């Protein structure tokens, strides 16, 4: 089952640093954790794939179909940004409907209603975004990304600064979307969340892929020590000095 494939992602910043990957394949129906320390390039890789930063993305394809023009890319790759920006005065429903933007005037109502139903946002649907709590806003923006109904969803730290309740609800939603056949790529800092929810892991350090495979086998002692500068102990993870 092929979800998202790319032959190479290359991007170099003028001040040094950047991203350099070889071929990447992410299966359909899987939830893949994108892991790495701060500054490893997780956000940049996601933004490069969805076209939010300029980068050489070679041979990008979804379900075997090469994505060429921006609209095709927008319809196949949904993106959930780390920064939770939204128009404070707009209603939840209007914000979720923006997910239908790549489809132009084609009837958005049905998909938007389905997303509101799935996420249980009905009671908030007509409230202005700015009046919601941080956790609720995060769920609305996830709903906006799901409204695209794309086969691939890339979520950049969707659980950052959320309390456990909202963080786990977001991860539950991502996993159930993967079980419905989507490819879900999610960057997280919390390794225990990755172990609990994700099928595969991709480890980034310094803009390069340093590990790939199932979460358990990828997060081995060497990677924990060399990439994350932690070690496993009976109490959980311990930082290395």
């Amino acid at each position, binding site marked *: 089952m092929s979800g998202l494939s790319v032959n190479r992602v290359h991007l170099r910043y003028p001040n040094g640093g950047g991203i350099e990957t070889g071929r990447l394949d992410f299966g359909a129906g899987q939830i893949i954790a994108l892991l790495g320390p701060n500054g490893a390039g997780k956000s940049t890789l996601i933004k490069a794939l969805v076209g939010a930063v300029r980068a050489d993305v070679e041979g990008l394809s979804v379900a075997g179909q090469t994505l060429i023009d921006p609209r095709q890319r927008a319809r196949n790759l*949904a993106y959930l940004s780390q920064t939770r920006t939204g*128009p404070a005065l707009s209603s939840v429903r209007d914000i979720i409907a923006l997910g239908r933007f790549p489809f132009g005037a084609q009837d958005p109502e049905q998909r938007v209603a389905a997303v509101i139903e799935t996420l249980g946002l009905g009671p908030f649907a007509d409230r202005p975004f700015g009046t919601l709590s941080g956790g609720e806003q995060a769920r609305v923006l996830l709903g906006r990304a799901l409204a695209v109904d794309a086969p691939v969803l890339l979520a950049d730290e969707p659980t950052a600064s959320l309390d456990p309740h909202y963080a786990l609800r977001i991860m539950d939603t991502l996993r159930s979307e993967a079980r419905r056949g989507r490819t879900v790529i999610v960057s997280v800092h919390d390794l225990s969340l990755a172990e609990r929810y994700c099928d595969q892991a991709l480890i980034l350090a310094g803009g390069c892929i340093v590990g790939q495979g199932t979460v358990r086998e990828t997060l081995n002692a060497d990677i924990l020590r060399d990439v994350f500068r932690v070690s496993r102990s009976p109490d959980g993870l311990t930082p290395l000095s």
Partner: protein
Amino acid sequence: MIRALLIGLALIGLIASLLVGPAPIDLSAAINGLLGQAEPATNAIMREVRLPRAIGALTVGAGLGASGAALQGFTRNDLAAPGLLGFSACAALGAVAALYFGWTYFLMPAAIGGALIGATIIAIMARRHVGAGGLILAGIGIGALATAITGLLMNLAPNPWALSELTYWLMGSLENVDAGGLSLAVPLTLVGLVALWRSGPSLRALSLGEDTASSLGVSLRHVQALIVVGTALCIGSGVALAGAIGFVGLFVPHIMRRLSGPDPAALIGQSAVAGGMFLLATDTIARLTAGPGTPLYLGIVTSLIGVPFFLYLALRKTPS
């Protein structure tokens, strides 16, 4: 609904403004005057003074309102407006430079060119994420520089202009609007309005931030080009026609947002109609209260209304 109401109000304003002036002309004489079938003096007042002035107010106001709405949507900044971001001052500099070098025929293109330079600088800064406050500061700086150079050109001119000329360009007035200016300004403003209107759907997506908008297939360069060219055409032709009239582009979109909701695409058209109507009403009231012989600069009136509003926005605790 709101649009129909606005257009209705604008039409009432247009009729009222045509009936108001130092010379008492009643409704039937005014209609005959517009058709060229009244006394020669009435014909001249209606066709060469009042009608051009009313069309001028609608044109300049529409350009200011739509530009403000589009800029606020594009920068996601409540305080963004063509005046505060320095576009109007740059356009005035362009116009004065054209006069200084004796290129009177190029007054309007020069004003548009000035606005285009100001708009491009601000658009580049907006994309570099200087922050909401930084953008406004940059705009104020650019505007102050343009105003200083405008004053310098007037000082250096071999045949120094009267100080009132400087005031005219910096405060704005519809006193000198004529058919010749309108024949250029109206079509150029309309092209600008179409460009701004076309940026509307992308502005909706941009309300989620630039990265998300890009992921939805919005070309940021394309939106930026539409906004820069659209505002430069509206503001440049408006300033060439009537000088730099301040604050209309700031508060008209805010009032429309309160009345009809936050959709940045709908706001552009609504702010255009409301801006035209507002300037028409303000000009009519200014003419009524000033009386003959003491022309009141329209920009003074709009600033008196706009500055308290600006301070309210700037001091408000919760930015959206």
